[in-house]
């Protein structure tokens, strides 16, 4: 794979606080790559290093094979969409978009046509002469995108660009961003703490936590095959059960669950005997007549009707489990509170993780 970016053993401390602990990964050309993690996980620090606003204490960063740690931001063919958009308030939208092109020394005529093209692309052509203060949040967002994409950077960095938008707009912008990425073929590096955003848009996701890369993979790999408790917990909802691994063989583990059932489940990340954690996603747990796979009994102790689906909290021999069930018909939400129902999940949909 042709690597747009290579991060090699990058470490960074701010005083006594270690923001990044020898982080390494590669980002392919034309990839929509997301760095996902809670605040303080080091994702923004990494992004700022790619832009050139921070430099690592040790390690190296390669951009298309070229070492860039010593290269200042204005000489890197990388552009950023800032979280606060950072549009120049004293310039019109046109001037904002033209700014990078002027600094690159493009000819006036070429700048003019490129600015027009970019404004059209983000549907802001009619507002070219306005100033940022006259725009709504979503419009500012689009101008920030147009400004960062206009100079045809090798990599576009996006620092939580959707976090300031309202829900509806955010959904629309996700699609728009994805389309822009496909159309332009530019490598996007996207930073977010919103796992849904990450799963929706990315080709690959790096889950960061505690200054380290926890897992890198496609959205489905991250969601369905988390390698540790942190990833399973941070990405999506899940049930953690304290289990005992009795036997492991060929990526499978035979375990004993707290409510007595023994089963064999995938355990790619973890294969040691003894105490471990079993992760089962709520939507993988089926209730009532839908229960299949490993089936046991549980009592409904709480339910939250969400319209499209219902969240149930179950008591299974003293262990709390959460299950969610799609309300597939008008009569979908039929299991009453307090009822004891069959509960089941397919062994292959659960995962054993290190305790």
């Amino acid at each position: 794979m042709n690597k747009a970016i290579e991060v090699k053993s990058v470490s960074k401390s701010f005083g006594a606080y270690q923001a990044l602990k020898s982080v390494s990964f590669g980002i392919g050309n034309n990839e929509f790559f997301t760095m996902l993690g809670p605040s303080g996980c080091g994702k923004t620090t990494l992004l700022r290093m790619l832009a050139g606003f921070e430099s690592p204490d040790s390690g190296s960063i390669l951009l298309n094979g070229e070492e860039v740690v010593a290269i200042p931001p204005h000489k890197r063919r990388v552009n950023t969409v800032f979280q606060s958009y950072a549009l120049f308030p004293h310039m019109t939208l046109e001037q904002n978009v033209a700014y990078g092109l002027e600094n690159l020394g493009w000819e006036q005529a070429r700048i003019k046509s490129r600015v027009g093209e970019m404004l059209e692309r983000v549907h802001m052509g009619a507002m070219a002469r306005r100033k940022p203060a006259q725009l709504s949040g979503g419009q500012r967002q689009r101008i920030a995108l147009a400004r960062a994409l206009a100079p045809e950077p090798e990599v576009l960095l996006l620092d939580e660009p959707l976090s300031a938008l309202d829900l509806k707009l955010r959904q629309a912008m996700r699609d728009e961003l994805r389309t822009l990425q496909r159309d332009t073929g530019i490598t996007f590096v996207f930073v977010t703490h919103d796992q849904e955003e990450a799963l929706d848009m990315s080709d690959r996701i790096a889950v960061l936590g505690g200054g380290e890369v926890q897992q890198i993979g496609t959205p489905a790999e991250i969601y369905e095959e988390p390698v540790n408790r942190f990833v399973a917990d941070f990405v999506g909802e899940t049930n953690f059960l304290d289990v005992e691994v009795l036997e492991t063989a060929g990526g499978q583990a035979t375990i004993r669950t707290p409510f007595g059932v023994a089963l064999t489940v995938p355990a790619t990340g973890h294969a040691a005997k003894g105490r471990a954690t079993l992760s089962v996603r709520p939507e993988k747990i089926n209730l009532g007549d839908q229960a299949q796979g490993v089936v046991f009994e549980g009592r409904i102790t709480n339910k939250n009707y969400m319209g499209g689906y219902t969240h149930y909290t179950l008591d299974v021999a003293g262990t709390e489990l959460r299950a969610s069930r799609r309300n597939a018909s008008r009569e979908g939400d039929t299991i009453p509170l307090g009822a004891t129902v069959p509960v089941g999940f397919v062994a292959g949909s659960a995962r054993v993780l290190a305790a």
Partner: protein
Amino acid sequence: MSDTALHATAGTDRAPRPRFWHDLSFWGLLPSRLLMGFALILPIFIIAAVSLATRGAHGGFAWDFNLAGYRQILFNEGWTGELEFTPQYLLIITRTFALAGATTLICLVFAVPVAYFISRQPPGRKAVLVYLVTLPFWVSMILRVYAWMIILGKDGTLPRLLETLGFPAGMSFMFNDGATLTAMVYTAMPLMVLPVFASIEKLDGTLIEASHDLYGNRWVTLRRVILPLTAPGIVAGAILVFVPALGAVLEPTLMGGGKQMMMGSLIQLQFGGGRNWPFGAAIAMALMALVMIFLIFTALRAARREALP
């Protein structure tokens, strides 16, 4: 209910308009109104009146309408009453504007980096540095100017230092426009640093990063992002420095030796030793008019800058 009925009730129910002395803000603003009236507006009218009066034979003035004060700024009246153009006072006015302008420019060049540096410090140190900038205000201005006389004068700190470095002994840097300018820059500097600091402090740091990100080097970033966005602070600082500098008296008198006069010292001379109150008042009015023109010009420019296309 019909429209007419509505109007009728509105007419009869309306409470009587409160008299202005029932309004608390009238009493709250009264002291400053009195102060402004008696200490600022009234004296301006008195000076305006004096500028139009006739010079008294032994100082003072007589209430006879006379434009001689204004005429004297540009023309000298000969024994026979003919008017002769004299550039003498025009030179002083020019020097005044040149020195005040130079003071403003030098202050600006020094203040921008200082203000930028302070704005980059952690909050605690920032407060200390801002305090240090204002520290000279705690010492009387005349003492601060005298301090410069001790530094620059004959046998002063600087000449002695230069002497030990092998320069000729007995050099003096006093009694010229350079000395006046030095003291003016020194006394005005905090007035420039503070407003410039306030506007740089307000400047969003990500805009500077955005400029670097979009291939702008330091110079481009300063010229196209930092300066335009801190312009209000720079204009405020320039006004705070330039306007008082036009009326400087102490610096040209003490540092310039009194021979290189500025408008302020010229006015003082007319009310003192020159015993020509109408002429002094006329120069004062002329100075005020020039300042007003400068301020109106700046205000109009600022208004145009604010206006959105």
